């Protein structure tokens, strides 16, 4: 069974049609990234799946449960999911360990508190008041609170905003570890390299619609797109778009009889593809 199954999802705020007929299937154990510009409807979709918002139309099943449900069934359901929201803060009068320990008491099978603190890299801050943490450290605490309940499904809404590059790398390693445990993850992000590094599949969303769902490598025909070979020929930089970059390079090697000056071979980056897709749908 799929962890998340969405059919014909619609949501409007007055005259604004934030989500216009979205279909989405996310397999158990999969890491899925939702990409899209601000205002595309990402957060609305995710908050409907998390049970924070109601929908206008469509069918939604998250771990076999309708997120609009209520009562004890909803509690049982929330016991199986973890949510890292976009922006949360606290009054800051508790320490990191006190907060995580407290939240661990909400769940039937919490992870070990010390292990969670270690895995988000806050061991040295465990005894610090939250008010004394940096922005990136607070974000890591958010992630810790999202995973403390050993969720089967984890929602991560722009989890690494405000991280320095090193913190992002160690966060990625943590996600890889969660993948190893079989956790299904739905990620929204602004960072395309993050989606590329983590996601099994990505969905591009623009103006309330899913434009494409694919693996990061194949998105927008990226894997079959022409490569661009460029090199220096005397005073000018030459470049050639080709389906066969290897043969172009070997011809050039013969021509230059050895080292080709300033040789590069590039394929469109995920960002190029993404911007093109967003641009296309804006026409």
């Amino acid at each position, binding site marked *: 069974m799929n962890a998340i199954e969405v059919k014909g999802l619609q949501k409007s705020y007055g005259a604004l049609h934030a989500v216009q007929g979205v279909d989405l299937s996310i397999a158990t154990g999969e890491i899925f990234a939702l990409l899209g510009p601000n205002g595309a409807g990402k957060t609305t979709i995710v908050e409907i799946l998390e049970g924070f918002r109601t929908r206008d139309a469509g069918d939604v099943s998250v771990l076999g449960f309708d997120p609009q449900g209520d009562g004890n069934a909803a509690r049982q359901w929330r016991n199986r999911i973890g949510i890292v929201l976009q922006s949360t803060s606290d009054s800051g*009068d508790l320490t990191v360990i006190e907060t995580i320990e407290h939240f661990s008491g*909400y769940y039937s099978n919490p992870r070990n508190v010390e292990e969670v603190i270690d895995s988000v890299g806050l061991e040295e801050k465990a005894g610090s008041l939250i008010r004394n943490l940096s922005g990136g450290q607070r974000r890591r605490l958010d992630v810790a609170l999202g995973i403390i309940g050993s969720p089967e499904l984890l929602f991560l809404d722009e989890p690494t905003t405000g991280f320095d590059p090193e913190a992002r790398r160690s966060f990625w390693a943590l996600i890889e570890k969660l993948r190893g445990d079989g956790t299904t993850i739905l990620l929204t992000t602004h960072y395309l390299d993050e989606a590329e590094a983590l996601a099994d599949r990505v969905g591009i969303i623009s103006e309330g619609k899913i434009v494409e769902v694919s693996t990061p490598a194949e998105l927008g025909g990226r894997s079959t797109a022409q490569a661009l070979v460029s090199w220096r020929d005397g005073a000018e930089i030459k470049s050639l778009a080709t389906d066969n970059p290897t043969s172009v390079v070997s011809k050039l090697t013969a021509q230059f009889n050895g080292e080709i000056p300033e040789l590069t071979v590039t394929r469109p980056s995920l960002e190029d593809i993404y911007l093109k897709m967003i641009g296309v749908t804006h026409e």
Partner: protein
Amino acid sequence: MNKIPSAISLGFRRGGLEIKQFSRQRESVIFTLLFPVILLVIFGSVFTDTIAPNVTFSQYFVAGMIASGLVNTGFQALAITIPLERDFGALKRLRGTPMPASSYFIGKAILVSISMIIQILMLLGFGAIFFGVDMPTDINKWITFTWLTLLGSACSTALGIAFSIVPKSGRGASAVVSPIVIILQFFSGVFLIFTQLPTWMQQFAALFPLKWLTQGMRSVFLPDSFASQEVAKSWENGKTFAILMVWLVIGVFFSVRKFKWDRD
């Protein structure tokens, strides 16, 4: 698979956490717990007359301050702090966990009860030592005091949670809530002697719980002979009970039905 902890046990966990958080906010600890005592010192020092045989103004004032302490630690504190928690996003995060709303409410009620007990002890202690406030000796008066405090706290907590949906933002909450409380304190005979107020003020105050709590506390701390000087010529404790129950039901209804976890 273990079971999810019960709503009651999580409520007590929340209560412990609320107290821990509160005790670390030095400013609000001082303001909430010491302010009534400061008022007692000011009013007790200025008004040294007796207002009836064997009844000093301090005696009258302590009764009123205990009643309004119930409103301060419950209604006022919650209606101001819950919108702040909502602004922080702390409530939304809680909403995303298996912790039920009832546990959150129980936690708040525990915080209110503990701060109320501390406040009452301080008021009675200061009153007795520095302003000659007499403690009741009749066991029935203490029974009345107990149910008034319990019912008053519950009512004040429920109304504070219910009213937390009114302020649009955490920053503006104090400006919305505090004037209501201060006006009710003046109208309900906390700072001023109730029978000396204009009739329209008395009638307006009689719609709200504070007037009844204040009157109930007077029935505990003032001699029974004073009852004849009340507006109704009696303490009306039965009526007080009924009116507090009605407000409790209203508060619980809106808390359960209308509580907002999220800003939007």
